[in-house]
């Protein structure tokens, strides 16, 4: 059975030989420890927009990641803008918010884009959202990953 999330369905077909008569009808365990996608700053919302790819377990919904497995995770975000401002004073911030709590600074960006990461110890069911400098609009499609470590 699926020890991680406990919802793997198994069907037994008595017309098949012994070894082949058990088939998995939903196998999710192998993908619950990594979730990747693209991201961008929507501007008006002030929250990093997360667009999952290959997220069969729907760990990311409405720009929020829900932890499926307790343990250490590394959150990776490649974010920013492709080109643009050259004014040194123009800086933007990206934070993370755990379970709707206070904003914790993740990184600052000035007219560029970069990969940033944070290791977090999460409990199953914890949620993460990424408030960013409100009003910032960029077409840069970055990338994110929630990676289970141990």
């Amino acid at each position, binding site marked *: 059975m699926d020890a991680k999330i406990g919802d793997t369905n198994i*069907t037994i077909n008595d017309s098949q030989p012994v070894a082949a008569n058990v*088939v*998995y*009808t*939903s*196998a999710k365990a*192998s*993908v619950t*420890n*990594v979730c*990747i*996608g693209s991201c961008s700053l929507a501007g008006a919302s002030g929250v990093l927009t997360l667009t999952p*790819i*290959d997220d069969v377990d729907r760990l990311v919904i409405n720009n929020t990641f829900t932890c499926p497995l307790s343990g250490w995770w590394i959150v*990776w975000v*490649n974010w*920013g*803008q*492709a*080109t*643009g401002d*050259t004014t*040194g004073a123009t800086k933007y911030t990206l934070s993370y918010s755990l379970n709707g709590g206070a904003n914790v600074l993740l990184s600052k960006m*000035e*007219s*560029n*884009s*970069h*990969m*940033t990461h944070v290791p977090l110890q999460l409990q199953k069911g914890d949620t993460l959202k990424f408030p960013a400098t409100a009003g910032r609009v960029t077409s*840069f*499609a*970055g*990338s*994110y*990953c929630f*990676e289970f470590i141990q």
Partner: protein
Amino acid sequence: MTDFLVDNLNGKTVFKIDPSVQNETTLWPSSKMMMLSAATGSVMSGTGGAQLATGYWNLVYKGVTSGQTPPAPSDGLYHFNVTHLYASAYGQPVPFSYCINTGALKALGSTYYSQYQDIGVFLSLRKGDVIKLWEPTVYYNLTMYPTYSRIYHWSFRRLVDRSNEISAF
């Protein structure tokens, strides 16, 4: 050249360091410090080589220079990461792109104003896919390589292996 034994991962990683830099007190990761026994398989990393006239960057892996990463060893989810230095106090962001095999270029990130930084992307790949890294050779009248732009190191690692995944019926 002199072989140096560096206890990096498991005490067996061997670097070969170019004599021109071997007496320097600080060694930047570069093609002058080639990893000859780097990890293989699902985790690969190496140093940056020269930028080609096409804008693509050479990547050095275990002493072999190529215009692309090694091929993905299986279907899966991958992380491609590059550490770059923009060696200019010049405030115009320089865009980087990547492509999968011969596909279209997609934005990877921008470096800026004397920064030493990481840029990267998370991808769903098929076995055998390779990643190419691209940057304009000339940007705002500055010729990027070798003066203003350096790739110091890169990594290409598998996050999830799809090839052994149980099939759903």
